[in-house]
């Protein structure tokens, strides 16, 4: 029997994660977003696991810079670290990883933020084994380094993909047509 106790579940997450979170928001009626420092991520994941949010639906990476303002990124990151900008979205110079845990209709998202320069995350594979694929995707698509994840090979990109090029970052503009076609004729 599937029960949807949206409100109760949301309350539960909120109270349990209260001491770890920097802040939280309730963007939609079935969602809660909890902003965490990267160091607290694993702990938070374990709490989610224990409360029945064992279903990790996906991990989304987001690059918040628009491609124009990457110059300011360190400054912006500074503001985040200093707590000036802790909620909301749409500020620049920040990479963010979103861990979507689901239970019934509720989506609880753990959000951790990093600067562009040296993004680092702990792996949650110890808690949620199925995170492995998504963490690999984060690594190759956004260049976030996850030191203790079990497998670090490429997942989607070819093996001869250039090092240091991360296609889903905003500053990646593609290789342009000639390169791809030239490669094809080789």
């Amino acid at each position: 029997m599937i029960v949807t106790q949206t409100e109760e579940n949301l309350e539960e997450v909120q109270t349990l994660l209260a001491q770890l979170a920097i802040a939280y928001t309730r963007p939609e009626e079935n969602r809660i977003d909890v902003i965490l420092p990267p160091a607290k991520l694993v702990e938070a994941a374990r709490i989610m696991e224990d409360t029945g949010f064992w279903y990790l639906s996906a991990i989304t990476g987001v690059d918040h810079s628009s491609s124009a303002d990457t110059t300011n990124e360190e400054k912006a990151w500074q503001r985040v670290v200093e707590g000036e900008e802790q909620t909301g979205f749409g500020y620049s110079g920040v990479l963010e990883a979103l861990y979507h845990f689901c239970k019934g209709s509720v989506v609880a998202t753990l959000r951790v933020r990093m600067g562009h320069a040296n993004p680092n995350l702990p792996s949650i594979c110890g808690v949620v084994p199925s995170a492995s694929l998504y963490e690999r995707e984060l690594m190759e698509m956004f260049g976030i380094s996850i030191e203790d994840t079990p497998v670090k090979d490429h997942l989607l990109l070819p093996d001869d993909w250039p090092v240091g090029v991360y296609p889903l970052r905003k500053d990646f503009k593609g290789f342009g047509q000639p390169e791809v076609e030239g490669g094809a004729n080789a």
Partner: protein
Amino acid sequence: MDLPKAWEAALVDLKTWARINSPWAIHFNSGSCNGCDIEILATLTPRYDLERLGIKLQGSPRHADVLICTGPVTRQARERLIRTYEQMPDPKFVVAVGSCGITGGAFEGCYNVANGVDKVIPVDVYIPGCPPRPEAIIFGVSQLLQSLQPPKKAKNRNAIVTNPITGSTPKKGVGE
């Protein structure tokens, strides 16, 4: 001595006849969305039954005459596509199915694709559509077979429909 010559001509005709009536195919997915692939598979099923034209899907490139290729050719698929093509014995033909196999279609300009099969290997027939209906695929293949026909007999054999598209003359749509 005319006889050997006549014999030779007959032999050539026989070979052509056999080639046209027994095109075995191999199917290669080079990054397509599966749409074209399921339509290709559908052409083998009772509704369309390509076996009645002698077409069989083969597993090994060594046994195939026709490479049916779908998708815009991703970076990873490129090598394997070339290898498959090289493994096929001559004479061999390539059919590019689907808009994205011809030009990249909706994926044109994506960073991981080569925008079309003919950027990688030579293509003999292009079948646009997204995906083309199974009938349209059959039509494309019959175009290929027709082109193998010696010119004098090209018309009335096999009851294959001729291409209704004539050059680039603009036409009005029906129903206007």
